[in-house]
Each structure stands twice: as structure tokens, then as C-alpha cells.
């Protein structure tokens, strides 16, 4: 991690908040890799699946992006959220951990590993009302666009956007609460 990373990620995030989808996708891929590296290093024992924590962190970053001040560095903000979600994951499983914030400096980006395990996010997705669930899974798992999803489900694009937004917010709320 370097000052260059920080500058680049801040720039991408500002572009994303201004509505640039491509910048946002780039931003999310990069921070997913960074957070994955951070989380994997912290989880030395079993019980918590690192990828669940990565996904929960990404969702939290998304639904809480209005808490980032555009003139503040973005990496401390990202790692504070990742750390909070990691501690939360351990707490839910009845463990206590202490995480040194300084250690984030040694984090390296890592790619996603293919796994067959059941994800927490799937349980949260299954708990959604049918309309939201079908929109969220069409766009994520099936990789359709907003327009394609609207055509397939026979509803307006606005309705798709609303369902997607509410569905993601609900997943972020329910994540790991079961």
C-alpha cells in the first residue's frame, strides 16, 4: 500500500460518487482485493470464512459511502469498516479478537478463491421479498444490466433500481444477523 494507491482510490471513489460506474467497478475490485488480504491475514483459525467478511465489508462500504468525506483519505475509512466487520464476525461466533490498526500497512491484495461453501450473503438474499430477490440475483448472479432486468421482469427501469437499492440495503442490514 502506498500514497499512490491512496490517491488513485480516492480519485476513483470521487468519480464513482459523481456517477461513474466504470470507476466504481474498478474501485470495488481493488478494495475487495485489499480487504481480502487484510482479512485473511487476521483470520488464522477456522470458524469465520474470510470471503464472508469481504462481502459484508463491500456492502457496508457501499451503503455507508455517504460517510466518507471527499477531502479525507479513503484507505483509513475502508480499513476502519473492514476492521469493524471482522470484529463483528468474530463476535457473532463468540470470539474476541484485538486487531492492531497499524498492521494494515502490511496488507497485500489477494484474488478471490473459488469456493463451494454456502455464503452468508445467500441466506440474506433468500430472506428478501421475491421482487427484490429476483432483481438482485438477475443483476449479480446472472450479470444482467438494469435495462435487461427490467425487460425480463416486465417492470420499469426505475422499479428495478428501487428494488435493487432496497434489496442491497436489506441484505446489508441482515448480513450475519441470523
Amino acid at each position, binding site marked *: 500500500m502506498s500514497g499512490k494507491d491512496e490517491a488513485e482510490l480516492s480519485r476513483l471513489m470521487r468519480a*464513482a*460518487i459523481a*456517477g*461513474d*460506474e466504470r470507476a*466504481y*467497478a474498478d474501485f*470495488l*475490485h481493488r478494495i*475487495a482485493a485489499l480487504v481480502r488480504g487484510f482479512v485473511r491475514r487476521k483470520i488464522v483459525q477456522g470458524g469465520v470464512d474470510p*470471503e464472508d467478511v*469481504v*462481502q459484508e465489508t*463491500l*456492502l*457496508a462500504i*457501499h*451503503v*455507508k*459511502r*455517504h*460517510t*466518507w*468525506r471527499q477531502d*479525507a*483519505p479513503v*484507505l*483509513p*475509512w*475502508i*480499513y*476502519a*469498516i473492514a*476492521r*469493524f466487520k471482522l470484529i463483528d464476525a468474530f463476535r457473532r461466533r463468540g470470539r474476541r479478537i484485538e486487531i492492531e490498526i497499524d498492521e494494515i500497512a502490511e496488507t497485500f491484495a489477494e484474488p*478471490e478463491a473459488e469456493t463451494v461453501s454456502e*455464503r452468508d*450473503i*445467500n441466506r440474506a*438474499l433468500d430472506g428478501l421479498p421475491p421482487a427484490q430477490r429476483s432483481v*438482485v*440475483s438477475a*443483476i*449479480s*448472479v446472472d*450479470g444482467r*444490466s*438494469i435495462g435487461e432486468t427490467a425487460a425480463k421482469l416486465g417492470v420499469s427501469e426505475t422499479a428495478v*433500481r428501487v428494488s*435493487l*437499492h432496497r434489496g*442491497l440495503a436489506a441484505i*446489508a*442490514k441482515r448480513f450475519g444477523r441470523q
Partner: protein
Amino acid sequence: MRTEDLIKALDADISSKAMPLRSAWWIAAAGAAVIAAVVFFLTIGPRPDIMIAMHTMRFLAKFVFTIVLAITAFGLIRALSTPGASTARAAAWMAAAPLLVAVAVALELFMVPEPMWSTRMVGSNMMICMGFIPLIGIGPLAVFLWMLRYGAPTRPVLAGAVAGLLAGGLAATFYAAHCFDDSPLFVATWYTLAIAVLAGLGALGGRFFVRW
């Protein structure tokens, strides 16, 4: 769902907008002040001799304490609701109000003869003080806890307690305009206890209500 797939969904939702947390805090503060003012004027209201009281140091000093508490708590709670924000400086400023009260107490003990200390401390209004500061502050506290939910506090219990201090500072500012007990000995005792009640409620709210 793979993380790749989740990113597609998040990316498609980038156009959804939410008010920046910083602006939202200012609106919440204004709303909370209005709620506190309405409750205050509908219930106890200012004391009848307020125009005369305003010429006395002890009366004015009460507002200095409570307003300084509210301002410093507002600074700290905004930092606490933002992940990764530095809180050290804002936390250090929280010492300002207690220090001012301590100085005022020392001056009061110096100026007032010892036999009167307990009368000044007990005052005539302590039950009203203990009842109305929490009553005026409970609406603002609810607003601030809701704001913590809107934000992302990584220490929710602490943030909730600071929400209580902020609500307490705000409520005590209004209450001070009603109260006849202007001695710093009274303020240091009963205002502190009443504000501590709100801080305790705030910490509970932070523990059970502020989840994200």
C-alpha cells in the same frame, strides 16, 4: 453469490444518492434544537425574571458550561460516526466543559462562606432539574441515535454515550433558562447527574439500536 457478482450489483446501484453525513449532522442538530425548544416552552419555559438574571455572572456561566458541552460533544460525535476519522483532538476538547465547571466551583467555594455551601448545592430545584433535563433531552437523543444509525460508528456504545452528552448539553442549555439555582455547586452536582442519565441511555441505545 461470488464477490464478483456482488460487485456487479453494487456497481449498478451507484446512482442512488444519500445526503453526505456531514450535512445531515447539521440538519439533525437544528431539528434536535427545535424539538428541545418546543418541549421546553410547552412545559416549564424560562424563569419570569430572566431579564434581570441575565445581568448576573452565575446565571450566564450556566450557559457557558452547557453550550461548551454541546459544541464539543457535537464535534466528537461527528468524528465518531465516521469510520477512520481521527477522534483524539475532538475527545480532548470534551475536557473543556468539566474544566470550566471545576474552575467555577473553585471560585464559588472561595467566595461563598462554608456554612452556605450545602444550601447552594442542594438548591431548591433539584428534582425539577433531574426530571426536566432528561425530558427535554430525550427527543434530541432519539434524533442523534438515529443519526448514528445513518452514519457508521465503529464504537457504537461510546458514540451513543456521546449522543447522550450532546442531548444533555442541549437540554441543559434550555433548562438553565428556567432554573433559579445559579450556583456552580448546584450545576456541578445536579446538571451532571441529569446529563449522566442521558449519557447512560445513549450508551444503551448505541449498544442495542445502532447497528450497521
